[in-house]
């Protein structure tokens, strides 16, 4: 707390002496939720990553077209099969005034290994070696193709600031998931903004960090006030009435309104979260037959769902990997043909159809319950009677874990922005030991597919790896391993002159540090 206070005081002083050349630019942002904690490694969620990209800097980050861009790392090179060397930028200062060096990266890496949420992503890494003050080596046990993908999660924490004991005798470095900790209330990164005020669930105020290293960034925003507004209509109204400058997400029902409104811009972008249905082969004998699974896929009109239910706010999918991912197969067309579906059902010996149960959440994905209703009526056309139950997400997930219905809905975003991740969690043979297939409620299991994933995950040549992942995607398609529906689009609303389209990305963490507001 005292650090926050001194920060506020310092900023106040700085503004007093700066002899204001231009007016303060303050931007009001409304999201549907505010960050759970100030700790960058407490919870793996969109909110945390949005915060991290404002207050911290990663080694590398994603650009709008899903390429890597060096941040704290100036350059990097593969020095052997299992080692990646990062050369760090010099002269980078933390908000506390400490200088960022290799030891902070090492310290952060070690802390990530203590974080229940993030340690999984860093599991392939066996260690980190400090070569000199501005050079670190990241080491993996096996050749690992996703070193840079993972480095986007490595946000340098201020090791000196987070070392020691609090007044209550707690270790300042500890990661606490459900309770008070030093890191959940105090923050020092290298990022473009400092947190000057925070009232959880009400607002967070960010102030521009005077000593930010990236002087080439043209970002000109002095202050950002983030307010959580949970209700969709209120959030939209707040933008339309001019009370806030930037909102996310924009609900599909209001897309047109924002598009037509004066003084407000709508920015949309295809997202990377795939919405799928899984057919449980353990519960339903018929689903063991690829013909039946394919019939279901043929019966579901994904394009119709995107068009009518999502109001165009989604990208029709035939596979899990979106464009830009290594495993994305160009030109794969969604299956939709009811006559063909009936034919397949007859071929499989189910011309009279059968009855199944289906479950979907009703507040997790955009229009999830309506999608489920549409699917169940589509399936009735080929003789499959669906007993549908939709539940709030809090009750849905325990049911999902128990595999409580014959068809279940799940949306997935790959934490590593990589194709193999989809298969690992959604369609790999369930295995408690490795954690594979943790969300494979369909119990789809194909050894060839799993072998392709393993092979791809040890292949460091990007092109060879992409070929393997595309082969995997094709195999899942041919087997109708799951029903792909669509990738949820992302949408932001911004006032004119915000130029927000420059800073948003498919990963949904806008780079506010680079935001240039027209004066």
């Amino acid at each position, binding site marked *: 707390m005292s650090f926050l206070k001194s920060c506020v005081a310092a900023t106040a002083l700085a503004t007093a002496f700066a002899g204001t050349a231009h007016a303060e630019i303050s931007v009001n942002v*409304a999201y549907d939720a505010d960050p*759970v*904690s100030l700790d960058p490694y407490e*919870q*793996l*969620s969109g909110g945390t990553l949005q915060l991290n990209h404002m207050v911290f800097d990663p080694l590398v980050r994603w650009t709008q077209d899903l390429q890597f861009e060096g941040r704290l790392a100036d350059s990097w090179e593969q020095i052997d099969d299992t080692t990646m060397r990062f050369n760090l930028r010099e002269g980078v200062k933390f908000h506390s005034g400490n200088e960022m060096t290799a030891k902070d990266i090492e310290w952060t890496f070690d802390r990530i290994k203590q974080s*229940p*949420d993030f*340690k*999984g*992503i860093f599991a392939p890494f066996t260690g980190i070696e400090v070569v000199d003050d501005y050079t670190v080596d990241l080491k993996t046990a096996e050749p690992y193709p996703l070193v840079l993908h993972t480095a986007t999660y490595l946000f340098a924490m201020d090791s000196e600031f987070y070392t020691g004991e609090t007044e209550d005798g707690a270790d300042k470095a500890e990661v*606490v*998931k*459900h*309770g*008070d*900790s030093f890191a*959940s209330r105090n923050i020092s990164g290298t990022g473009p903004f400092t947190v000057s005020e925070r*009232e*959880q*669930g*009400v607002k967070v105020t960010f102030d521009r960090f005077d000593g930010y290293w990236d002087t080439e960034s043209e970002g000109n925003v002095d202050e950002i006030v983030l*307010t*959580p*507004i*949970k*209700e969709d*209509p*209120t959030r939209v*109204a*707040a933008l*339309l*009435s*001019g*009370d806030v400058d930037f909102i996310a997400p924009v609900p599909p029902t209001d897309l047109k309104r924002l598009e037509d409104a004066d003084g407000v811009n709508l920015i949309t972008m295809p997202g990377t979260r795939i919405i799928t249905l899984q057919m449980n082969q353990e519960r339903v004998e018929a689903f063991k037959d690829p013909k039946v699974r394919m019939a279901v896929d043929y019966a579901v009109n994904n394009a119709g769902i995107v068009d009518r239910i999502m109001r165009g706010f989604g990208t029709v999918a035939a596979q899990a990997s979106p464009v830009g991912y290594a495993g994305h197969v160009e030109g794969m067309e969604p299956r939709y043909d009811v006559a063909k579906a009936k034919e397949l059902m007859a071929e499989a010996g189910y011309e009279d159809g059968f009855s199944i149960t289906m479950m979907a959440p009703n*507040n997790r994905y955009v229009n999830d319950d309506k999608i489920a209703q549409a699917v169940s009526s589509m399936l009735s056309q080929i003789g499959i009677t669906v007993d549908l139950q939709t539940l*709030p*997400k*809090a*009750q*849905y*997930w*325990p049911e999902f*874990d128990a595999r409580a219905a014959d068809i279940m809905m799940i949306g*997935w975003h790959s*934490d590593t922005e990589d194709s193999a*991740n989809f298969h690992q*969690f959604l369609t790999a043979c369930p295995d*408690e030991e490795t*954690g594979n297939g*943790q*969300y494979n409620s369909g119990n789809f299991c194909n050894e060839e597919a799993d072998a392709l994933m393993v092979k791809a995950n040890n292949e460091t040549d990007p092109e060879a790896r992409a070929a393997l992942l595309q082969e995997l995607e094709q195999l899942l398609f041919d087997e109708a391993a799951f029903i792909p529906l669509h990738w949820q689009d992302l949408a932001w609303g911004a006032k004119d002159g915000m130029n927000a389209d420059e800073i948003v990305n498919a990963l949904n963490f806008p780079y506010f540090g680079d935001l240039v507001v027209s004066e």
Partner: protein
Amino acid sequence: MFAYLVKRVFQAIAVMLVISLIGFAIQGNLGDPLRELVGQSVSEEVRQELRDDLGLNDPFLVQYWRFLGNALQGDLGTSYFFKEPAVDVILKKLPATLELVFGATLIIVGLSVPLGVYTAIKPNSWISRAIMAISIIGISIPVFLTAILMIYLFSVELGWAPSFGRGETVHVIGYWDTNFLTVDGWAHIIMPSIALSSIMLPMFIRLIRAEMMEVLQSEYVRFAKAKGIAPWRIYFVHALKNTLLPVITVGGVQIGTMVAYTILTETVFSWPGMGSMFLEAVNRVDTPLIVAYLIVVGFIFVVTNTIVDLIYGLVNPTVKLARLGA
């Protein structure tokens, strides 16, 4: 009186116990708090460790017993989301909610009395008919719809009032920041207060109207009229006094109900009170906060009911407190 209060305290404790037991029993059906605490790709093993840490794997009675033991020491658990004692979280949010309820009460008291009296005196005038028609609409439209319509009309289209939040507040004491000392604060509280009052106001107009019409039929009013007392004096001094007795009783109970209605109003207006906090806690399966909220709101109900009983006894001496408490 003293015996009555002691009895009431014991009743209150019993009510709190029942609420805590119910709150505790339903939390298992609200969903899995771990889902909201960790990322989706976190392994089941890690989740189990956290569940053990939180004591969620213990049998129900063990958990409840532990909860009671802590509750006796004033600890109702720590919110998963706010990472603070649940009671502190609620106490911090309470002033915002009470100010909103207070704002709505001002509107209800200020409008229901004149409107109720007027519609009783002139039941057939077109103004009375209009008031009754509008009040029917007010009762039938759900609060959240009224609130959203107001935001679109007054914030987006007309730009008269801000659309969300509390705006600028002034610190008073402890956790209490007030809206009533700044222009911005007033601008922010007006719409939510009107929305919150939209259900109760018509009800009170109708209640006062009905009571007033009954009183106007009574002998003493006729006598006063015959005596030649000025009509306004008859209506507002003699008749109104007797009308308000039952209104006060109902009003006291309804203030408690209004605290419950704040859940919707606060959510729509992003009002940082304990109503919106509760709804979010349910969504996040923040069970310690949910149970604590139920207990605190239960406590508010018990207290307001007790006060109403006391006032009732004071206003109408024929009511015996001892009998009421029994």
